[in-house]
Structure formats: C-alpha cells, structure tokens
C-alpha cells in the first residue's frame, strides 16, 4: 500500500512537469569529433573563413569548417569559456580569473590582458562574449546565479549591466548574428533569440545534445554548436530557414 502511494505521488509530479512551455525542437544534420580537449566555445571569423575554439584547459585553437585543427596556441589561461573574433584580433575569456585575453589573429601572439572583476562563484563567471558591431560594444555574460549581461565599450569598460537570469537556467554562449542576439543554455539545452537592445526573448529552440557550450554561425548562416562532454561539434541548418 505504502509503495502504491509513493508511485501515485511520483506520477503526479512527473505529469506536472509536462505542463512546461514547449520550444521548437531542432536536430543536427551531422556532428564531428574535435581534437580540442573540453571545447567550451566556438566562433566563426568571416575574414579568415575559419573557426576558433577555446578549451576548458585554457587553450585556443583555430580550425577549418570541418573542425580540423589548423593552429593552436599553447595554454595561456586557466579556464577559457568564451571566444570571439573580429578579423584582426581573437578574444578568449577566462571564467575563473575574470580575464579577457586579446590575441593577434595572424600570429596568435598575446597582445593584452584585461581583468574585469566579478565576485560571483568561481565556476559561475564569464561564459559568453561577443562584439555587437551595430552598437559598437561588447557583451560579456556570466553563466548563472545570476546570469548578468555586461555591456562593455571598446576599452572594455562596463557601461551597463542587465540581469537576464529569468531567460534560462544558465547561459553558456552568446553570438550576434543577423541583427539579433543569440544565446545558448547548457542546462536547458536551449537556443534563444533575443532583441539585441531590449533583451526580450523572441524565440526558443530545444537542442537534443549533451552539454552545449559554444555557438557559432558560418558564412551561410548555418549553426555550429560545440559540446564539452562529448568533445563534438554539431552542425544545424539555420533554425529560421524553413
């Protein structure tokens, strides 16, 4: 009798969980294994037509479109979690040391380091970083508890901050693409499209991949998502193309 009661309570809780709002499900077209240990973020550079991937172990890697490693930069940081490039420089963000590393894209030589203090938990620090060309600013986002979106000017001075914790349980990557801000959530396994100025959520897609940590769009607008635990990069068609 007692077991029956537990079973009924369990079924009740599970049925409650099914009332959550459903996002659109999308599936990858293919995936590749990537020779980067613990790949934590990926970005596309249109000038070099290559991708840059950073690793939890602190390394920076350049790859071709099939994610074959072309160049690698020996470990500089302790825990790289975000990467962005602008055709001239590549920026890698160290989560636990709260530091942005600026590299020359041609030589991968370290140009400068910027420490942006943040007092949140060590593994809940900066996880996402990208340049917003339309507004000439950077965004730097903490992972969770809380997820804070910092707007930085081109001297890496914080000009504004917004708590976006309500959007998802965590934010693992951010990318400006096609006039919108796109976010990735690892824990919710979700892709989220936002208005780039109001940060209003416009659309959500659910992703059937474990531990999605990095987000990039290639020159055709197709989407690549890097997954830390699987050490893979998944390829998706542009989610807005029918």
């Amino acid at each position, binding site marked *: 009798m*007692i077991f029956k009661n*537990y079973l009924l*309570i*369990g079924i009740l*809780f*599970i049925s*409650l*969980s099914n*009332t*959550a709002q459903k996002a659109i499900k999308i599936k990858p077209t293919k995936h590749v294994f990537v020779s980067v*240990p*613990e790949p934590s973020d990926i970005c596309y550079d249109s000038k070099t037509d290559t991708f840059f991937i950073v690793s939890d172990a*602190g390394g920076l890697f350049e790859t071709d479109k099939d994610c074959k490693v072309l160049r690698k930069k020996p*470990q500089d940081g*302790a825990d790289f979690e975000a990467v962005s490039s602008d055709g001239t420089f590549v920026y890698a963000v160290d989560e*636990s*040391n*709260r*530091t942005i590393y600026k590299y020359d894209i041609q030589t991968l030589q370290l140009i400068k*380091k910027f*420490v942006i*203090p*943040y*007092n*949140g*938990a*060590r593994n809940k*620090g900066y996880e996402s970083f990208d340049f917003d060309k339309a507004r000439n600013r950077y965004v730097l986002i903490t992972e*969770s*508890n809380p997820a804070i979106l910092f707007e930085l000017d081109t001297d890496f001075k914080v000009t504004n901050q917004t708590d976006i914790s309500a959007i998802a*349980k965590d934010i693992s990557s951010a990318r400006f693409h096609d006039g919108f801000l796109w976010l990735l959530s*690892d*824990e*919710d*396994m979700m892709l989220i499209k936002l208005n780039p100025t109001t940060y209003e959520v416009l659309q959500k897609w659910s992703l*059937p*991949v*474990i*531990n999605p940590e990095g987000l990039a769009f290639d020159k055709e607008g197709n989407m690549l998502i890097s997954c*830390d*635990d*699987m*050490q893979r990069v998944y390829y998706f068609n542009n989610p807005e193309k029918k």
Partner: protein
Amino acid sequence: MKKYIFLLLVILSINSSFAQFVISNGQSSMELSSNFSGFYNYRVMKPGEVDDSKDRFKLRDAQIGIDGHIGKDFEYSFKADIADMAANTITNVIDPENPGLLNANVTYKGFKFMEVEMGYGKLYYSRNSMVPLENSAYWQAAEITRGSVFSVRDIGVTLKKNFWHQRANAYLGAYTGLGELSLAGDNDPSGKLEYIGRFDVSFPCRYRYTEIDERHTPIPMFQFGVAGRYADKKLPPGTAFPANATSTYGLKVIDGERYVYGFDASFQYMGFSAQFEIHQMHSRPQNPNDPLFQNYTLNQTNGYILSGGYIAQINYYVKNIRTILSARYEELDLNDLVIGSARRFSPAIGYKLKGYNNAMVKFQYFNILRDESIDPQDFKQQFRLGFQFQLK
C-alpha cells in the same frame, strides 16, 4: 564556542557587505562558499522503547569553504563545519565521524601525465560517498557509505589520472587508514597505511559524479566503477587502536588484514537517474578471540569474516518545479557469521526554492524494514524535514 560563533559572524559579514564569493587577481582566484542546513527529526519508536531524544531540531551544517587555484598548477580546498565543532565543544566529546574538518588539501597539476592530491579530504573509493549529499534530496547517506563501516575521509596522497577524453578516471592513493581520526596526528601502533584504488569509465561521454539529472540529458549515459582498498593493521602485542577508531560496528579498522571491494553503476536519461553500489569486506583478524568471530572457532570461520551490502537508488528531477524525487533501498550485512541483514527503504523529496537554485527544502523518510540482530535499532520509522541554503 564563542570563538567559532565570532569567526562565523565575521565571515558572514564579509559575504554580506561585499556580496563577495570570489577574489581574483587575473592569475589566481579564491572562492568563499558556505552551507547552512537544519532539520526537524521525528522517530516512530518500537514498542517498549522510551527514549524520544531524537525528536528534535538539529543544526546539521554550518560550513565555510575556501577553494581556489594559484596559476595553472595548484588548486586547494578547505572546508570546515562549525556546527560539528560547536557540538564537539559543548559535549566535550569529539565525534570521530564529524570532527569538524571536511577538506584541507592541495592538488598539484604541474605533471602532464597525472595530478597529485595531498592532504585531508574525501577518499576516492565509493561513488556514493564522493557525491556531495547537499546536491541530493537526502539528509543522510546510506549506512554502508556514511563512514561507520569504512572511512570516507582520511589524510594521505592520491594520484589522479583521466583518460579517453575524461570518460575514464583512475585514482590510486595511500592513507593513514584511521579515517577521520587521522586528524589526531598519529597512526595506530601498527604504523601501517591503507591503500585505495578506483577506476571508473563512462559512456558515451564524461559523466560527472552526480546523482540527479537536472539537465534532462537527451542521450542515455552510463558509468561503471570498480574500487578496492587494503590495510594490514596487525597490532603489536599489548597495544590497541586509538579510542573510537573501530567505530560503531568494530569494522572501520580491524586488528588484522582487511580487503574491501566495491562496484558501482550509474545511469541518467531525460531526468531519470539510477545508481547501484555494492561492497564486500573480507576481514582477517589476527586474534582468534577477536569479537568479530562471534565466539566461533578458527576451524569454523577459516580465520575470516565477510561483511557487505548494497544500495539501489532511483531519482527523477521534475525540472519545471525544481523538485528532486528519490527512493533508496539498502541492505547491510555486518557479519556473515550472524544470520540476517538489515534492510532499509528511504524515499526523499527536495524542492529548490524559486529564485535561488541553492536553497532547498528537503524531506527524507526512513523505514527500517529489518534489523540485523547484532545491530538492533530502537526506532522503526524516521521523518526528517528541513532547509538547506548554500552560498556558492
């Protein structure tokens, strides 16, 4: 006691005035964390039992942690529980399983082929004991893995290595072998160490040491582990172990040789998760009159006793209401020379409060389905309801 309270207040005031969890200089960082929890405990006693002292409120945890890294090569971890220290001070009795220090160790990562951890902390033997209890809905671990049958913390050196893109982990270490009592500073008169090894492998990707699938993993994930430990602590004539070293069941350290073997398996998929863990202890006391032999002769026992047990646990994480549902069944046979074993069933619920993922209301129910005759309990059921708050 006053000192501990003062220290706690100072640290809390630092936290609240600066809302500060991490201090970083761009090369190194140091993180402050804490964990507070307390519960109300109610027991349904067996007929004839009159001691209701366990119907109580209890401050379970008042922990302060400092973790960090120095550059790329050093990591350190310190964690103390002021609730345990205060209890030990008030009662003037040091609880050997809860001395107040939880972690004090340094890991060196400078060798490319392995990491070396030195100091005091959790032992890499049982997966169940390696998973922090504060991440589960439970207030109390299963009997076999909570530190009374074999130790779960000790002082020593551990070599750590992962393979196959972190899907496999290997640990090998040497420790004092006295568990939490090793903090007293001396070994027992045998002067021998305990050696522990563990190897686990997961598929299809790295599987962290967790029990709850909060992410609702879209692909089934598995992990299997094997572990073993060995100690030869034959005491010289006329000597004895330090007080409380052998613990409640007289098994934690024995006057003789002891082998322990364990196997564990874990699974998670779409919010469901399950764990199974089994251990067997092969104890060879050197003295034929050792109480562990239960007055049987050497011919009857062949000079050894077996002990062991298993835990089977299932969980589901209800994501949109942030609730953990768990149920655990455990069996423990303390001595194969005594007929029977203890069986317990324990479901639990953990509800994470909206707005802060690290604040949780937890409820655990214990039902003692059967006692082992050499370890009779005075209660039949227990209810434990409380609140846990972590700053991290």
